[in-house]
């Protein structure tokens, strides 16, 4: 059964890191059913931040929650405005 699952590598940023007995966990491999989306991954990982407050990237490109994941994908889950210096006016995003 395990052979049918796909494997993706996930990078958890800042407040999404997981405390473990061995220290903070910020990179992990996750196995998912084929056809799973980024949104499914968020559910699997029990990420409770609203999607609006997250910046999602698959293989280095901005992704939406409905994007289907493939075997070997790399996913970065970033609280939407961590680090850096500029604030995007919400209206900007509508352009």
């Amino acid at each position, binding site marked *: 059964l395990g052979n049918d699952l796909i494997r993706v590598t996930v*990078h958890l*940023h*800042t*407040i999404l*890191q997981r405390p473990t007995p061995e*220290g*903070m966990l*910020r*990179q992990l491999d996750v196995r998912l059913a084929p056809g799973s989306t980024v949104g499914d991954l968020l559910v699997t990982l029990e990420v409770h931040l609203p999607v609006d*407050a997250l*910046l999602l*990237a698959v293989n*280095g*490109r*901005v992704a939406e929650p409905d994007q289907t994941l493939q075997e070997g994908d790399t996913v*970065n889950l*970033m*609280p*939407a*405005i*961590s*680090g*850096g*210096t*500029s*604030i*995007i*006016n*919400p*209206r*900007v*995003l509508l*352009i």
Partner: protein
Amino acid sequence: LAIEPVPESWARLGGRGLLARILLDEVSPTCEPLGPANKLIFAPGLMVGHMLSSCDRISIGAKSPLTGGVKEANAGGSTGLQLTRLGIHALILEERLGGELWLLHLSPAGARFESAEGLAGMGVYTAAERLRERYGKKVAIALIGPGGEMRLNSAGIQNLDKDGVPSRIAARGGLGALMGAKGLKAIVIDGSQGSTPPVESKEAFRKAQKEFTKALLAHPQTTVYADYGTAAMPRMSNGFGGLPTRNFSAGTFELVEKISGEYMRQVILERGGQGETTHACMAGCAIQCSNVYADQNGKSIVSPLEYETIGLLGPNLGIGDLDTIARLNWEINDLGLDTIEVGAALGVAAEAGTFTFGDGEAVLRLVGEIRQGTALGRVLGNGCVITGKVFGVEYVPAVKGQAMSAYEPRAIKGTGVTYATSPQGADHTCGLTIRAKVDHLDPKVQVALSRSTQINMAGYDTLGACLFAGFGFAAAAESIRDLLNARYGWNVGNDILQVLGRETISLEREFNRLAGFTTAQDRLPEWMTRQPLPPHNSVFDVAEEELDHIFDFGQ
């Protein structure tokens, strides 16, 4: 020395916008930047002086010795606050002082020049200590290091943080070189006997301040900044393939984990001692994004350790060790230089084979050459463009003579548009786009995104607001309008941030046009349009025609 009333056309501007206005009114755009006709101007932003959280920044400007165009560099710390306590809307330094090295002392008793001969050649950390011993712990100080005295084009002007450490640098564009050329080592500002600037409607101001502060404190991002600061960025940039690595030859770095903010926080907490993960640069700041990075014995190496410095002195030089980066940061700070410009120059020097990428000891030796004032040291201290010319390197990451910061424009193309078109030269603080939910590789959506961001940033820089204060302003949208109307008795509308931003950029572009700039300077280096960047193997391919019309306001 003259004290003059504020002209009408200057009264409604502050910070970056006011600098551009004064430069157009008083400085010949074609003047020699290090010559006597150039003026060095200090202008607190419009909101400065009231301990509004994260809104007490000082803007410093001139015709840039580095770019030859308009320049504004801003910093936190106490300089802005104390200038406003003396009722100063702008401080304009004109003629070159003769002979020895001087300092300018400002207080309610007036302004006077004193000899600073004993401070000649002294690094900013020791010089600031001496000045605080002489003038007291309550003064604000803006000062230059040996780099500014040597008139190096990467020299900035340092300001004291709330603890009296000269770590808040108006870094970019070579303003320290101009201060050195004016014969001025330091400006000591004693506002302790001064007063808070007048407020037209105190009740309305208090109400707006409360709303802004509440929104800022409630914003989840404020906590993230307190814990990680800007150092949260290496993994994000790396995740997008946009972390400049080995002189901008790749967008990911194999040692990113060891230079990440997440790792840095762990190290600071484990080492204890003087290290702090959360630290304020300005009194009254609710965000406190700064930090103190300590060594294995808990002794402070540098404060703060920020993303741009980590990027340019880390991955850009192939260095994956925070202790080395922190030591380099302290040295370059002490020289009074911009870590971005020096980091980029070192990357170009490595490209030329001066040292091997990753050799931190070699980099420390080269920075030592800057301090000694050797020919090679002076080349590096004059920035990446001059270094590239001296060594015959094509791959120089600069626009309008100024080095790019730690966002790769071929992977984060909107920020590439900002680098190309900002009147300031390559500068992420003029309009960073990495957090927008757009495809950063799609060339078609970047110009509109960069334009909006550049306008907002120019607005914040005119208010004297830290860009991070924007979380609060975004959540309490009317507070900018309400604060300005209450403070000055104005009647501005809700779009005042954008109004100020557009006006500022228009003034700056006019200064550059008169200085001889054309659309030819609104470009990334040609090689970035041709040389693919791994991992996406992308080039910068935003249409030049779009770049040329980015600031056609009103269309």
